[in-house]
């Protein structure tokens, strides 16, 4: 038989073997298909940075037409679930207990000072523990205040005195739905987990079950064994990837502005890198226990916190920014967020895709170098 014919036959046999094993072992199917659905629904519904109906204490120390007017502006906003309180002491207690996230206080002299030159002060206290939500609450209160001012000015027929008026235009995600940026990032996180978990155990499993020794004495080379696994899990991972992208677009209604084929190509590169990482772990560990432990430590938390999925990499200290370069998910997060929301922006996609290709090459080379046909 020709050299090439033999190789094709061996590879064919190895790939078929991997597929049969996948089909017979429900846990790989579960990792590839059930886990993405589970995580995506969990993340997709569970994770949102948009505050809505924030409980807010309203304290008007001397109720009047003016104060009622101001409070109405706050109550009208869907951002708040206002609770009217009688005294500042009561409101402060509620804030301390976490029952409200902020207090808006109109002092007894509100109506009187409104008519003075420097205007009446409105005291706003927010719970600063969750700084992000606190800032959002501040922003919402400011928005309601602005509306109130504008409405008041319109009623009195007086032009409102605003020297500079901010007109903001938000590109790509005009309603600022946090889901629109979280869900594409999730695709990257979930694929990291799948890629690594699928392959982290497979090489170690062959060692532990003794099948590796039997494979080694056949003419199949280590490259062919690795290639067989890579092909099979690549196909499986692509299935999981399509499922996550499909759910993102149809269930979570995230717009996909870029080309699907570019997404496909980039995901394939990313999948190669993630699978390569799993294979590297598996090859180096040789025991399922250690491999699994490393996989957990090295994948989830770093991908969650350091990929730019939630926390902006640009805001991290330079040292930490350097560290993020070894996180595979980082590059894919940048690509998917752009592809979904902005479109085919080549100057973002190409460098990141190149980085992915480099990572994939590094991981696969390590795996290949480390898996020799020897038992030592």
């Amino acid at each position, binding site marked *: 038989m020709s050299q090439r014919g033999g190789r094709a036959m061996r590879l064919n046999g190895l790939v078929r073997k991997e597929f049969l094993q996948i089909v017979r072992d429900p*846990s790989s199917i579960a990792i590839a298909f059930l886990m993405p659905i*589970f*995580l995506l629904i*969990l993340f997709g*519904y*569970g*994770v*949102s*940075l*948009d*505050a*809505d109906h*924030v409980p807010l204490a309203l304290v008007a120390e001397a109720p009047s037409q003016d104060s009622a007017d101001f409070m109405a502006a706050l109550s009208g906003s869907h951002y708040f679930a206002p609770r009217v309180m009688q005294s500042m002491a009561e409101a402060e207690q509620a804030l*301390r207990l*976490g029952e409200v996230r902020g207090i808006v206080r109109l002092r007894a002299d509100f109506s009187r000072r409104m008519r003075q*030159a*420097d*205007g009446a002060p*409105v005291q*706003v206290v*927010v*719970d*600063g*523990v969750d*700084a992000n939500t*606190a*800032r959002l609450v*501040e*922003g919402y209160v*400011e928005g309601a205040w602005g509306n*109130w*001012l504008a409405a008041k000015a319109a009623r009195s027929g007086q032009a*409102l*005195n605003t*020297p*500079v*008026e*901010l007109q*903001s*235009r*938000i*590109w*790509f*995600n005009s309603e600022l739905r946090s889901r629109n*940026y979280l869900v594409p990032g999730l695709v990257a996180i979930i694929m990291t987990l799948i890629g690594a978990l699928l392959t982290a*155990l497979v090489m170690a499993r062959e060692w532990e079950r003794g099948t590796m020794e039997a494979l080694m004495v056949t003419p199949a080379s280590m490259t062919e064994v690795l290639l067989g696994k890579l092909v099979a899990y690549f196909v499986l991972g692509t299935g999981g990837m399509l499922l996550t992208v499909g759910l993102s677009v149809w269930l979570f209604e995230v717009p996909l502005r870029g080309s699907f084929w570019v997404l496909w190509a980039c995901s394939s590169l990313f999948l190669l890198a993630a699978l390569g990482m799993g294979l590297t772990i598996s090859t180096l560990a040789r025991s399922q*226990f250690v491999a*699994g432990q490393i996989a*957990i*430590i090295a994948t989830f*938390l770093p991908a969650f*916190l350091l990929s730019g999925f*939630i*926390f902006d990499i*640009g*805001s*991290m200290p330079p*040292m930490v920014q350097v*560290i993020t370069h070894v996180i595979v998910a980082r590059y894919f997060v940048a690509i998917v967020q*752009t592809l979904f929301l902005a479109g085919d922006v080549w100057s973002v996609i190409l460098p990141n895709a190149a980085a992915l290709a480099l990572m994939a090459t590094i991981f696969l080379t390590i795996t290949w170098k480390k898996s020799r046909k020897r038992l030592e």
Partner: protein
Amino acid sequence: MMLQRILALVRKEFLALLKDPRSRMVLIVPPMIQLLVFGYAATFDLKEVPYAVYNEDGGRASRDLLAAFAGAPAFKQVAELRSEDEIAPLVDVRKVMLVIHVGPRFSADLQAGRTAPLQVIIDGRNSNTAMIGLNYVRSVVDGFNDDWMSAHGLQGPPARLQMRAWFNPNLESRWFFIPGIVGMLTLVVTMLVTALTVAREREQGTFDQLLVTPLRPGEILFGKTVPGFVIGVIQATVILLVATLWFKVPLLGSLAAFYVGLVLFLLSGVGAGLLISALSATQQQGLLGAFLFMVPAVILSGFATPIANMPKVVQWVTLIDPLRYFLVILRKVFLEGAGFDVLLGQLWPMALIGAVSLILAGWLFRHRMY
């Protein structure tokens, strides 16, 4: 006699866990590194937001306004544009997050007492960053307006907002996240210690050996619980020291409340880990179980995204997440200086979760078929 047996069990568990230098490494080194890296990484505060200026006006007023941006530490100008066409390429590739566009009639409008529009284009791909950036811009513009009005003797608005943030006056989000990381890493370590112990003994056959000795399931359970506790307490203490001494997060509340919370949290974490372990026949299953518990527990704990923002159904699910309660305790103790009175509502659910899971795990020791 019974005490003797239990002591022997505890000793054995510690040896099994710590004798191997690799296990010692895994338990100690990654959590430390992760605390440092994540502590720096986890922040919503924006620093040096890159922006570009497209000034069509060039008048005095516009220069004053832009100077206000240039002087703010949150912003960093990276480009000066000459035409509208230059905007899109910069934003698309994320060179800049926002573009400040001053129209040609800006200074003239202002001088004439008319309202001058200031256009800001912002990259909304990361909606949270965009929102925060926009807030920063607004506060710079507000400051400019106040200055302008007082300089030109204009009538101000009838009411003005005086904002104040309690507990975290500068709204540093790091203060918010670092206590969260303390809880998260404690959970991860607890899982690493407990989730595989029973499964490992089952695979090696030593679990049968234990069950045929006079040891009662309760005693075996106790023996397996202690290392998780001790390692968890030590780990959390070290992390606590790093958080306060290195990251300078204020610790205002009572240490006693912190430790009571920690012990109950460990009880529930160890319980969940042992339950997973008792349910699994192999280490692989234990690992997958640990993972399927850990990821949702972190996501739904309110670590990065407030529980209040979640849909009602998901909020119910969070009720069985021990990390949720511990995070509240951590944040209240660290930042609000809370004592026991405020925390009672967080303590009993963890105790309940811990008790239920431990009882189930103990029952499964003897009754799980495999």
